[in-house]
């Protein structure tokens, strides 16, 4: 499960794009929830929420393309922390 703050961000991004947050394995980009610039803001929210810095190797659109991938990243980040 994504934390409430991340889900709130995705819901707001979806609302602005007049769409809905898709299923956990569907692309947030293809569904129109995220674009290049809201992705920047999503990473900022994640870094702020978990007090981490996303490494350059993980700073790729693919890392945040679906809810399940975001969950995987957050789980890995928590272990690394």
């Amino acid at each position: 499960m994504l934390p409430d703050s991340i889900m709130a961000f995705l819901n707001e991004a979806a609302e602005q794009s007049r769409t809905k947050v898709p299923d956990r394995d569907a692309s947030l980009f293809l569904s129109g929830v995220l674009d290049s610039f809201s992705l920047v803001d999503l990473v900022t929210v994640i870094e702020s929420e978990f007090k981490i810095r996303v490494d350059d190797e993980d700073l790729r659109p693919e890392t945040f393309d679906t809810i399940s991938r975001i969950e995987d990243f957050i789980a890995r980040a928590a272990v690394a922390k």
Partner: protein
Amino acid sequence: MSCHIIGAGAALPERVVPNAELAALLGVTSDWIESNSGIRERRWVAPEQSTSDLAVVAVRDALSSANVSAEKIDYLIGCTISPDYQVPGIAPLVQHKIAGCRQVPAVDLRVGCVAILYSLQLARALIESGGAGTVACFGAEAQSKGLDLSPGSADLSMLFGDGAGALIISGDTNAKCGRFDLRVEDVLLASDGSFAEDLIVRAPGTANGARWLSSEQLIAGLHYGYMNGRNVILHAVRKLAEAAIEITERNGLGLADIDLVVPHQANGNLLAALSRKLSLSPERVISNVGRFGNTGGASAFIALWQAVQEERLRPGAAVLIVAFGAGFTWGAALCRVTAD
């Protein structure tokens, strides 16, 4: 010896290309271009105009701004990724075209959108080492001549405009005879070539097989630019923000102490994302991307020239220049307007 920017100039082609003209070629709408880039129009050179033609006008304008004659130039630094020729570089061409310029060293830097920062770092090193007293540096681009203007190429081709900007940099602290004096206090630069293929023009190039340019490469479009837009934007905002924070902190400042930010004009949405990340209000950020598009290596030069034109460089102001480009390479420069 300290290093001072004492003149700024610019040259922008007469031809205005509004989104509507480009949209028709690229198979998108004007609104799509503006909403995805913040760009409403850009300037493109005429067929008979070359990049050095723009650069010469900008350097002359900068010399006039500094109230310095061309004879005073000791060193020319020219930056472009859209040169007149593959060889020779653009800087010697500009040396030849500037009346009164002596037979001084003239070097090209192929550093894309970060041109102003490499220029400032090298000019500062030359001046502080005694290698030169006055350096003229410029960024100039005529990238419109190399754009893919077919449907499907909008992501990249909607962005670029042509133009040139130039600075006169001096170590003579008594040289203040122009309109302003901006002391270069620090320059931070970095690169990471592992991202080279995210923003690239492959041809002509020796990594393409037996020939650096072939008909097969042209058919494949390797002479056109390619951009992994999402990755570029993600890393650009990250690196620009980190460079801004690092250079201010290592000079005992915070971002709240910065009066004016002069960024490379990559994309209006990118500038907005950077401003959100650094909590910069719009009035602290110079922006001209809506009118001129992304002018590559010229853009931060033109933005600084704009700051001078708009009289934004008040005495004592801290000015932060930030840029990011292909390579990736990125950085920041911290400058201070000297008090009268």
